[in-house]
């Protein structure tokens, strides 16, 4: 890590409009994160269009603010109304909601803010140290390694999402096929375009994403009309009590580090990190049986782990160009729209941008702490907003968001098409995250596979004779096979 560049990065973010954008991003992120029915992925997909017109530092600051805010925001509704605002907050709910029911919502939320901040900041720090190192190694990667990496990332996300591995694989293959629409990256031949000019570069990323993650959700959302929800208890405090911090600081630190490393595995996301952190705290505890009845350590461990995951997920995204989870896949798409292709070359060609990202990530977490602690009462009101008003507004935002990237109504059509596809896939238990990751990793997998085969004169042995490549491929296959076996066992157990 280069401290001079990092300081410069801090200066770039702190003394400019970028800081305002970080604030706006954090507020927007907490809002979308805390609203039940808006997952972090969907929220970011809806907010990314707001950054299209901004200069790179400001748009990045805003995106990272949204990212950090959204993961924390999920805990607000998990604690207050027993609905995780994002999947990442599902573990927070276990002890957070019982606390709120006892009238300790303020205690749980202030701990959640604090733990999220420590986790997120630790993740950002580890990212700043590790990402440059990994990118150095990655500069030596050849085509075979990149193909293997893409394969590895896809198999992880397939193994962790959804109940059926077969369906996950089918979803992944579907996403990969979509990614081949448009000009062939090597020969330039247009594929599957149906003669449509608009499809020559493939279906645009943001509209596809809005379709799969926003439209599909609201189409499902209009099916049921839900009554307004009530918040169970009043909020009385902003900062955690000293005794709570003393009780859980070991869990917070442990979860922060665990979360960062889980996040850094391509494909594994913050929901998994939160559950691993939670069960680790439960294992360490002297009274594990009390977990689930409102233990402050449970909230602390889950929240620090899922926010630490944000920094961790940025590591492979920045240094390898492989997103750590669905949310970072969206971030990666947003970077590309700004004209930056994450990966080892980013470090060679735009090292200043990389350090701005490090700085922005740390600042975003500090801002999240401030906004979260001071604004928690307001956010607690917002989550009870009438869903029947919210959903129509999301429809409009989805249309505007998909239109605004290229000022194209065709893109709105693309978003609607994928909205319907996503709705049916979702309805029938096909996970959507593998599709998203496949869209990002598909072109990378294809061009590197073909490059590797050209270099080897067509022999597929090139993939298995290089140590890093073979290791990644084997790990990918293992994660798929082991989760199929696990699935079999749990099915047998339930029969």
């Amino acid at each position, binding site marked *: 890590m280069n401290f001079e560049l990092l300081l410069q990065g801090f200066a770039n973010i702190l003394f400019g409009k970028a800081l305002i954008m970080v604030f706006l991003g954090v507020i927007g992120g907490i809002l979308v994160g805390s609203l039940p029915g808006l997952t972090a992925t969907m929220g970011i997909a809806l907010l990314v269009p707001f950054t299209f017109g901004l200069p790179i530092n400001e748009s990045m600051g805003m995106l990272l603010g949204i990212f950090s805010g959204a993961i924390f925001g999920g805990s607000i509704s998990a604690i207050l109304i027993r609905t995780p605002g994002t999947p990442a907050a599902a573990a927070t709910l276990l002890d957070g909601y019982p606390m709120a029911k006892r009238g300790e919502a303020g205690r749980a939320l202030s701990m959640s803010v604090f733990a999220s901040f420590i986790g997120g900041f630790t993740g950002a720090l580890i990212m700043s140290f590790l990402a440059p190192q990994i990118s150095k190694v990655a500069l030596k990667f050849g085509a075979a390694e990149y193909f293997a990496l893409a394969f590895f990332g896809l198999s992880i996300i397939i193994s962790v999402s959804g109940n*059926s591995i077969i369906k996950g694989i089918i979803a992944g293959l*579907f996403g990969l*096929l979509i990614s*081949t629409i448009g000009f062939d990256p090597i020969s330039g031949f247009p594929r599957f375009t149906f003669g449509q000019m608009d499809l020559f570069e493939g279906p645009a990323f943001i509209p596809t994403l809005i379709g799969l993650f926003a439209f599909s959700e609201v189409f499902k959302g*209009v099916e049921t009309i839900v009554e307004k929800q009530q918040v169970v208890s009043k909020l009385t405090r902003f900062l955690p009590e000293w005794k709570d911090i003393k009780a859980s600081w070991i869990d917070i630190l442990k979860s922060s580090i665990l979360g960062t490393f889980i996040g850094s595995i391509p494909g594994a996301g913050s929901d998994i990190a939160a559950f691993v952190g939670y069960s680790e705290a439960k294992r360490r505890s002297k009274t594990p049986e009390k977990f689930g009845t409102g233990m402050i350590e449970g909230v602390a461990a889950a929240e620090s782990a899922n926010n630490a995951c944000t920094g961790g997920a940025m590591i492979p995204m920045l240094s390898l160009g492989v997103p750590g989870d669905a949310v970072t896949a969206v971030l990666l798409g947003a970077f590309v729209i700004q004209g930056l292709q994450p990966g080892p070359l980013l470090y060679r060609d735009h090292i200043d941008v990389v350090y701005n990202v490090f700085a922005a990530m740390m600042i975003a977490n500090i801002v999240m702490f401030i906004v979260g602690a001071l604004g928690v009462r307001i956010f607690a009101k917002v989550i009870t907003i009438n869903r*029947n*008003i919210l959903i129509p507004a999301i429809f409009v935002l989805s249309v505007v968001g998909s239109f*605004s990237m290229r000022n194209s109504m065709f893109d709105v059509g693309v978003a609607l098409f994928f909205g319907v596809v996503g709705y049916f896939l979702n309805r029938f*238990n096909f996970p959507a995250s593998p599709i998203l990751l496949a869209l990002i990793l598909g072109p990378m997998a294809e061009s590197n596979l073909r490059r590797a085969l050209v270099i080897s004169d067509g022999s597929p042995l090139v993939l298995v004779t290089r140590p890093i490549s073979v290791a990644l491929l084997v790990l990918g296959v293992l994660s798929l096979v082991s989760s199929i076996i696990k699935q079999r066992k749990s099915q047998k157990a*339930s029969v």
Partner: protein
Amino acid sequence: MKRVNILFGLIGIALGLYVFAVTATFPDDAIMKIGPGFFPRILAVALVLFCLVLIIQNLAGKGEKGESGFDIKDPGVHRSALVLLITVLYAVIIPFAGFVAASVIYLFILMYLMKLRKWIQMIAVSTGVSFAIYFIFSVLLKIALPQGFLS
């Protein structure tokens, strides 16, 4: 779930076969040997294989348990189909009516479908949200939204 899974499997196989057929029309790359059809073809074969697995699993009764929860007669499903139709119409009229006018009407109709009946609130929200989004995108972010006859 069983029948739906088999149906999805068949759709997947059809898609795979279609992709395979289309790649046959792709040109061969004389120099690089591995042409534009190479990767889609691998994917198509894999898709067909895994869809076969899905079908066989479900025929053997080893698929997921439980119902899909999707009922074509469910009024909720009708509502989402209706919303889809209205959204398509909305997208079509935006270039003519302009973003704000189209959105006000669209939001109002959607809220009506969501069983809201507080008329003043509905009018306030639909105009407020439409103008707010227009202001943020067109004025603050300088992303032009269609203005239609208001321009």
